């Protein structure tokens, strides 16, 4: 393990929204992870953080960097997701009107996380909480760099 970070996230705390993901992005940049991989991990971390803030009561956002890649783990205590397949569909959102007015609730967060990761797992238990694990592997980062030239 090269680097491990863990942040507590509080549901409804829009003032601090994005702070954990911003810290993760900064740390990845600092240790020299390439821009493309950093960007993908940052987007995943942000969407995971926002989902805890918008939809859950409290949770943690973790990032682990190893030679294999970057793992983002979000675990929360919250209402859970009754139908994960439905939640994964682009455009599906249960965000209330007040939150949509702020530009959230496009129903794109989970699809974004999946799109930008090489591995994506989500499990949820209604009445308990949700766990999302995403990996951006360093091998694809190398390939992406190669094709970028």
């Amino acid at each position: 393990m090269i680097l491990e970070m863990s942040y507590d996230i509080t549901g409804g705390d829009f003032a601090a929204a994005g702070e954990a993901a911003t810290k993760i992005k900064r740390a990845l940049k600092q240790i020299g992870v390439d821009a493309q991989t950093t960007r993908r991990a940052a987007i995943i971390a942000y969407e995971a953080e926002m989902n805890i803030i918008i939809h859950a009561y409290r949770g943690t956002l973790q990032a682990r960097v190893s030679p294999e890649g970057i793992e983002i783990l979000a675990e929360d205590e919250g209402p859970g997701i009754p139908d994960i397949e439905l939640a994964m569909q682009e455009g599906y959102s249960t965000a209330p009107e007040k939150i949509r007015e702020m530009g959230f609730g496009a129903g794109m967060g989970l699809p974004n996380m999946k799109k930008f990761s090489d591995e994506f797992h989500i499990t949820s238990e209604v009445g308990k909480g949700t766990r999302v694990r995403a990996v951006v592997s360093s091998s694809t980062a190398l390939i992406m760099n190669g094709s970028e030239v």
Partner: protein
Amino acid sequence: MRCMKLRDVAGRLGLKAVAGDGGGTGDDALDREVSGGYVSDLLSDVMAHACEGAIWVTTQAHQNIVAVAVLTGLAGVIIAGGVKPGDETLKKAQEEGIPLFVSDLPSFEVVGRLYTLGLRGGARPCQGA
């Protein structure tokens, strides 16, 4: 496309940064090259589709736009439609070094002007900066 610095783009639109212009620290975010543009009021849409180095036009003005700009690696944000950012937004933009501009023109007009300057929706590699 000729490369344009954020400073020149803002100048051509008659916009002045209301925050995040580096405050004369020498580390001037206005010197950054603008790679293109994106317009949307949906934050996750911007996260997914805006390109690194783009300028973002939106009518959202709350502080979460700053985190979106930082995480997506945007060059700056133009808050259009006469919407005024609150103090928290300005403070956050200042802290994170994200240049914020405010325009009384609707998003459509702002984007039209950016397009006329040669900026496009997809990011282009800047050559001969």
